[in-house]
């Protein structure tokens, strides 16, 4: 499972430094809720999630109680920090499998956020969903509670690929879930994974075509990463499965862009395409634009005004803290200007609108040189660059991290 980053020990009262309040009027506030439950663990997954046997006695109910305690704690912490009450612009339930909980349980959490903080008008409220766990009733309940969006973990439509990924869902359930979400009035996003060992280019085209046929509002496509410590990593190491290749990933990304764009979607971030500007994930944009968010639940990360922190990882450790009326924060870091600048470049360059070249020059006076190379190599759009904005071409999107390294000098 992924390791937590290093940081300084977070205070047990969870209070934030005064610096975190600076400039908060220009930032929106967002809530992420981590639901760390899965029925089975998928072979490629290194997320902070647990099957029932791994929970050391933590039940869904006790978990929910602690989640609500953290909401109360967050309210106190933010009230101590800010002079006025801030509302959430977006709420996102992720996991794990949030839909492992009952719809009413998710609704209760949302209700608590509303009563403690309040939501902005037209707030976006999303949950990730496993297609096997949701039906019409479930999704209607969410919609009635104020959910606006559901992100369905489809991954692939090809059964041999799903098998290697250890995905147990029935591919036919994806269409049912999408239809049910639509009829409940929810926006629908589907998640896809490409580059699974053994997946052919045609397998990938088939998955894309199937996803497009579902007529979702939004598609996310992620290349499969072999994370250390996973079953997949062991299989690759033993030679049972082939190591996914970067060239294969590049081919498949290009295919994705071509097919998804042809179906009328526009990319707005490296891995994300949207039918219209109204259906982008505003929650995820908040991450890329360095807004403020509180991450609730075990292992969740938060960011408020340049202070990042992350909670203890295991649900039982999380429970212990909250039962003792302590902050579940494990460690934190206060970003200095250089770190903020680095993050801004690495995040904003992923977006379609790119990043201002004046800003790049302010942090690296020599930035013009790499930019000229990027133009020559067709990695950024020349017209935009001349107008002062660095935006990526398809080729550049595939090499974003290399570009960021060059830009930071």
């Amino acid at each position: 499972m992924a390791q937590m980053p290093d940081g300084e020990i977070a205070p047990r009262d969870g209070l934030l430094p005064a610096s975190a309040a600076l400039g908060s009027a220009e930032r929106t506030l967002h809530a992420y809720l981590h639901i760390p439950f899965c029925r089975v663990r998928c072979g490629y997954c290194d997320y902070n999630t647990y099957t029932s046997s791994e929970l050391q006695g933590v039940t869904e109910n006790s978990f929910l109680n602690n989640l609500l305690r953290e909401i109360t704690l967050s309210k106190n912490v933010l009230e101590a920090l800010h002079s006025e009450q801030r509302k959430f612009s977006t709420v996102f339930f992720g996991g794990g499998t949030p839909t492992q909980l009952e719809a009413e349980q998710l609704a209760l959490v949302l209700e608590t956020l509303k009563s403690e903080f309040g939501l902005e008008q037209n707030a976006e409220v999303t949950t990730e969903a496993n297609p096997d766990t949701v039906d019409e009733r479930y999704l209607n309940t969410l919609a009635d509670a104020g959910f606006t969006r559901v992100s369905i973990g489809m991954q692939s439509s090809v059964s041999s690929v799903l098998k290697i990924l250890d995905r147990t869902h029935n591919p036919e359930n994806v269409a049912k879930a999408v239809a049910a979400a639509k009829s409940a009035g929810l926006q629908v996003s589907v998640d896809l994974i490409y580059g699974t060992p053994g997946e052919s280019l045609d397998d990938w085209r088939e998955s894309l075509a199937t996803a497009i046929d579902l007529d979702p509002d939004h598609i996310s496509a992620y290349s499969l990463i072999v994370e250390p410590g996973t079953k997949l990593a062991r299989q690759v190491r033993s030679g049972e499965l082939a190591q996914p290749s970067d060239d294969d990933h590049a081919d498949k990304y290009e295919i994705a862009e071509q097919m998804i764009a042809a179906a009328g979607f526009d990319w707005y971030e490296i891995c994300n395409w949207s039918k219209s500007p109204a259906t982008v994930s505003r929650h995820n944009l908040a991450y890329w634009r360095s807004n403020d968010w509180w991450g609730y639940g075990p292992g969740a990360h938060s960011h408020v005004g340049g202070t990042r922190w992350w909670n203890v990882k295991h649900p039982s450790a999380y429970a212990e803290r909250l039962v003792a009326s302590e902050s579940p924060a494990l460690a934190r870091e206060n970003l200095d200007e250089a770190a903020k600048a680095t993050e801004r470049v690495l995040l904003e360059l992923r977006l379609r609108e790119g990043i201002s070249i004046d800003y790049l020059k302010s942090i690296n006076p020599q930035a013009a040189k790499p930019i000229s190379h990027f133009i020559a190599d067709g990695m950024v759009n020349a017209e935009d660059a001349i107008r002062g904005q660095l935006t990526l071409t398809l080729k550049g999107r595939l090499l974003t991290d290399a570009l960021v390294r060059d830009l930071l000098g």
Partner: protein
Amino acid sequence: MSPRATSRLEPAKTDPGMIRNFCIIAHIDHGKSTLADRMLQLTGVVDDRSMRAQYLDRMDIERERGITIKSQAVRMPWEVDKQVYALNMIDTPGHVDFTYEVSRSLAACEGAVLLVDAAQGIEAQTLANLYLAMENDLEIIPVLNKIDLPAAQPEKYAEELANLIGGNPEDCLRVSGKTGVGVDLLLDKIVATIPHPVGDPNAPARAMIFDSVYDSYRGVVTYVRMIDGSLAPRERIQMMSTRAVHELLEIGVSSPEPEITKGLGVGEVGYLITGVKDVRQSKVGDTVTNAQKPATEALVGYKDPLPMVYSGIYPIDGSDYPNLREALDKLKLSDAALAYEPETSVALGFGFRCGFLGLLHLEIVTERLEREFGLELIATAPSVVYEVTMDDGKEITVTNPSEFPTGKVKKVLEPMVRATILAPKDYVGVIMELCQARRGTMIDMQYLGEDRVQLRYTLPLAEIVFDFFDQLKSKTQGYGSLDYEEIGLAEGDLVKVDLLLQGEQVDAFSAIVHKDKAYAYGVMITGKLRELIPRQAFEVPIQAAIGARIIARESIRAFRKDVLAKCYGGDISRKRKLLEKQKEGKKRMKMVGRVEVPQEAFIAALSSDGEKKGEKKGK
């Protein structure tokens, strides 16, 4: 057996008739240092308790490799027929790189012990030094060492020695430096057969410098052999080559610890200390005289050491450059033959072009820099000195292949050597093949004994500095030995091969090679770099070229994907830290144009064919 001397002759007052000056000529590992140790013990100048194995070889590197780099002299008393004699044993460097130093050591002696391993027979380097000793009219005492070894064949090799230097096989002494057997007889024989020194005690002082050593406490210690006249403490002395005058702060003999004396007289061997800090002010071969009453004629034989092999030496960490400069400055104090000047390389940054007497010298210097000064270094492939004449008559000396002129070259002269190779006769075929492949021309071939053959070849020095010795050792299963001497320049059909990375020349890989070998070199180096340089965001062509003509080409395919799939709230911190780490890693990258080349790639590409680690280990 002669007894240990009960008294010693007082230096500065010793009758030249009671002095014997000798050296030991031996191949590396034939036991010279062990024999010298036994002599020190037997004559009582070093007591058994303080006996350190191989007492005379002071430097760690020397002791580790079992070779002598710096010579020294030891005065030992020895009694024969109730007469006490003073024996001066002058240690000589054993390696071909130091031929000049050897020749000066020999010039300080009247006799030489020719020491040969009774299990191996004479080797090429010993032959070369024997030849020099005979040129200097030294009395030669043939000695077979290691007769205690089960594999010793003293009869066979006594025969071989007799054939070489004349005389009867029975005249050849048999000793064991390890057990001490026969060493007393050898000392007796030195007294009996080696002529005593002859000089004019009343003439103006003339002393020949045969060694000059830097000591961090005492400054430069100069070892001399008095030829005429005498020197006394507090005198003002003059170096005849530079006319520099110094005050004699200390004068004495080594026994083997320094022993201050009232001076040195005709035929004596000892040391001088003047307080100078740089061995270049006290050069081997120079003549020391009295500043008030100077001699009119210097002793013959002085010459400045000339570097034969050049290599660029660069710190792996660029910030070590000032430390490298300081280290070279310090080494230079004790190594007059080391030459260096600053050089910059596109690929390797700031460093020094260093000149060496030969490959062993290069190895020793780089090893001392790394060991004694804690530096991590890259050395470019060794190169020789080329004399280039252009069409317009302009002459250029090239010590760095990347500086080889690009215009119309009329001719190129390269240094040639006469190589002597000794090996069992079964290997003659492979040796001839090797020499031919290295552009060698055979001079002659002769049998030394029943099964050992001496081959002599004319070869370009450049072919020898390029892993020749390793090849010889491996093709002869370790039995081949090599010696070479410089014999001047010869015209060669040579071209410069450049290495281009994305169109940019990488100076560290330029090489001057024979026209017929240019293609093979180009293919080898481009292929190697293709393996070593990681993929970049763009395709990187690697080309080898002679001038504008491309002779070999490889390319590194561009990588097409370098982006993390997901980057959400929980990923940002880790991603930033990864990026910061990558930025650190980038500092160890060398930029060639836009191509990022890991330092390791340069090291790997240079070391595998460049500085082979064979010669220094010798046999």
